[in-house]
């Protein structure tokens, strides 16, 4: 390539890189309320890293998409309440009793209610919760059902139902495959769940809402939930003889909950939807979790899989709903119901400034790498700098563009390891060329030989890294999958940049230099210099 063409090419590459750099790093507000957000600031969903600046911006009342952290709540089983809830209820009952009992000697209904409430919720050793005392545990008879006996011993049936419900919740949280999601048992009888910030706000609510549905699965149909007719289940049969399970499916941008039906289930639902308008209510623990609407005009024979779609379904929310139905059908059976406590947003696990400081760490590594290349190879360092930038910006765009990737510790580690791979590849090639120059060959021949000697070795190195990473990604889940996939694309980009783009840039940039060996800082004797 001639000097003019080389200059034009370099200007174009520089302009492109500057544009990408602007897109990837700059966020600002304009026109008072509109904002331009950098690519990383739009990359959401991570519990570990928080963006301190975004957090500050958000607390001023602005809407911001990324601030790390997650949401937490506690699910309480029926018959167990917190001391706060007990005291609040007691205070309101006391107020009602005080109001009603003025001037009368006999016990009023309000006073009776207060006395019964006070007597029915007791404390047991080792727990700061209040438990409803009763003779038995029987969800079908809610009035007389309790969690403990009057002497504070936990009723065996309640304990079994609670253990099974916890197992169901654990299975769901585990199957959701959300990074850093966790589940804890609080005080022996509360289940605390932490879910990281998801990309969709509606999905976040849906996940929390559906996780807490435990109990029996029921299918009913009608115009509204209260008056819906339950599916007629034959004697000696259960709902599992009609619905086998559920799973979430995404295809062409549409996400659905798929219900696997038996032949009896297909027939029962087909019969109803072909004759009536209304909704089908799929409930878990007595509460409808999903309710697709049907009209006789659009009815068709229901196949072995019933796909339920909703406009607000995301991959996470559909998965949570499908898991709730599936685990209630096929997991440990329980008739317990949970009520959800207050929901809190929790800051990023490593603190609000974690993301900012990770960028600082990235800057330090980049600076150290560039200092090494510029000191050892002088102007050849620019070739590495351009190669590195051509690796980095597509990498950032890919992390932004691929929905399941986000900015986290694993992503940072993978991008930085990709940088190491790129740097090692460039060093190996430069050193190979340097050795040839020392042997008296011209710089142009040395570069050609250097790449020729190293090409297949470096090619194998990148292929091996990418292969191992992508295979790991296909099997692993959560953090490991994220790390593996990011490293896989980092290895591919590093290979392209070091083996193809780097060589081209070297030739282009070197064409401006009269003394080629000086450009690369390859110290050679006069004889070799003259050959240039």
């Amino acid at each position, binding site marked *: 390539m001639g000097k003019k063409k080389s200059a034009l090419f370099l200007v174009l590459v520089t302009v492109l890189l500057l544009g990408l750099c602007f897109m990837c790093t700059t966020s600002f507000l304009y026109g008072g309320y509109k904002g331009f957000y950098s690519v990383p600031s739009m990359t959401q969903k991570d519990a570990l890293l928080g963006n301190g600046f975004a957090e500050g911006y958000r607390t001023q009342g602005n809407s911001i998409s990324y601030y790390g952290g997650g949401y937490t709540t506690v699910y309480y089983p029926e018959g167990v309440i917190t001391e706060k809830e007990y005291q609040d209820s007691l205070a309101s009952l006391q107020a009602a009793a005080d109001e009603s009992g003025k001037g009368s000697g006999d016990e009023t209904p309000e006073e009776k209610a207060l006395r019964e409430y006070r007597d029915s919720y007791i404390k047991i050793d080792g727990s700061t919760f209040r438990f409803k005392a009763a003779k038995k545990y029987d969800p079908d008879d809610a009035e007389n059902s309790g969690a403990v006996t009057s002497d504070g011993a936990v009723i065996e049936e309640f304990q079994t139902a609670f253990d099974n419900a916890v197992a169901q919740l654990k299975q769901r949280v585990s199957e959701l*495959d959300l990074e850093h999601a966790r589940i804890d048992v609080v005080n022996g009888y509360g289940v605390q769940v932490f879910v990281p910030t998801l990309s969709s706000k509606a999905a976040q609510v849906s996940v929390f809402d559906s996780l807490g549905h435990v109990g029996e699965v029921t299918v009913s149909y009608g115009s509204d939930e209260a008056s819906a007719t339950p599916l007629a289940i034959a004697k000696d049969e259960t709902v599992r003889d009609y619905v086998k399970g559920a799973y979430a499916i995404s295809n062409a941008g549409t996400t659905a909950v798929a219900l696997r039906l038996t032949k009896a289930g297909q027939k029962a639902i087909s019969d109803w939807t072909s004759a009536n308008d209304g909704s089908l209510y799929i409930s878990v623990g007595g509460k409808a979790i999903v309710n697709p609407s049907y009209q006789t005009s659009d009815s068709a024979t229901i196949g072995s899989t019933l796909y339920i779609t909703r406009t607000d379904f995301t991959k996470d929310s559909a998965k949570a709903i499908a898991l709730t139905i599936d685990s209630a059908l096929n997991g440990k059976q329980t008739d317990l119901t949970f009520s959800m406590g207050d929901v809190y947003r929790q800051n990023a696990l490593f603190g609000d400034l974690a993301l900012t400081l*990770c960028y600082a760490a990235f800057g330090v590594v980049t600076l150290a790498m560039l200092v090494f290349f510029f000191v050892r190879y002088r102007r050849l360092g620019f070739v590495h700098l351009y190669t590195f930038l051509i690796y980095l910006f597509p990498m950032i765009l890919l992390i932004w563009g691929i929905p399941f990737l986000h900015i986290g510790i694993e992503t940072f580690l993978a991008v930085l390891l990709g940088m190491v791979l790129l740097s090692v590849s460039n060093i190996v090639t430069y050193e190979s060329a340097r050795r040839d120059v020392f042997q008296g060959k011209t710089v142009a021949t040395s570069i050609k030989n250097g790449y020729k000697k190293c090409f297949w070795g470096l090619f194998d190195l990148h292929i091996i890294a990418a292969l191992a990473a992508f295979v790991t990604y296909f099997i692993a889940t959560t953090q490991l999958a994220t790390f593996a996939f990011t490293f896989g694309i980092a290895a591919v980009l590093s290979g392209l940049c070091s083996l193809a783009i780097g060589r081209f840039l070297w030739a282009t940039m070197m064409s401006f230099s009269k003394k080629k060996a000086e450009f690369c800082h390859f110290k050679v004797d006069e004889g070799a210099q003259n050959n240039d």
Partner: protein
Amino acid sequence: MTKLRSNKVFAIFVALSVAVIAAGIILYALMGFNYAQDKPKAYVVEISYGATVVNGEVSDGVSAEDYLQEKCEEIFEQQGLRYTDKTSLEGVSDSGSGFSPNENGGVRYTFSADSDVEKFGAAQTAVEAFLAAETAPAVANGMVVVSYAPVSNLALTKAAWRGAIAIAVGAIVALAYLTIRFGVSCGVAGLVCCAHDALFTAAFFALTRIPLFSFAPLLYAAVAALLSVILWTIVCIVYRTGKKDPANAGLNASALTDKALSSCWKYVLCAAAAVMAVIAVLGLVAVAGTRSLVLPALIAALAPVYSSLVLGPRVFVPLRTKFDRRRADKKGGYFARKKKAETQTKE
């Protein structure tokens, strides 16, 4: 570098590896990993409050939230309780389109599981007494509720076993490629290095009881296995380049390996040092939370250096010599017989 392949050095390294892996497996079977970073068992004190505290001030520039938290922390200290973690909580409720702030708030303090439970009761009473005596309206009317509870984490194991299978399959596929491109002996030696590094890293964590997050042993074992494949590939590349060099035509596998090691050890060390520098900077420049990830990750980066420079060549040389000899025997025997037969036919 030849010294690294000497019997004495190799024996020391192997003894160390075997001891660490065996002890690690036993300790893992008995006690598992130390997942203290996940806080599997802990006591949690939660202080929740309403909008008055969240938005109020007790004096100029001192928010009611900060004041309340400071007072609570003073009470914990008086009771001899030291928290290991403090998390701010922001109350949210469903606004129809997602969770939105509802002006409630709270703070969660985590204490170690071996804390004296009676002290929590005393601390709760002290905080409630302080609240009853408090005159600042922002705190006094703040609907402050203090509760404490033991918390036990339910480990989610699915990611762990899926990760273990993923690493194994990923490494096998990479090694299969290595075998196709560089020969069976390189593949087998790479497999040994890979298995060793993953096991050594995991065993080291089990043995030293370094506090880890539950995802850490697998992630670090994966990093070690991946780095092991990459570093061993560097050795194999240099070996193959040396073998193709006409100047090395008469050298056997052992001499070629020594030559390859003496020219590639710098690359291997540089690559490992670069990885370790990345991890160290990521941990040290970043915040306290990530520092706990640094030391275990350095182990994961160090193990592959040993295996690619010491263990791998030691496994590779006898295998390669055997294959070379067999090939030479085959070639010699076949060609010798063929040549002899041809000569006899001509005669």
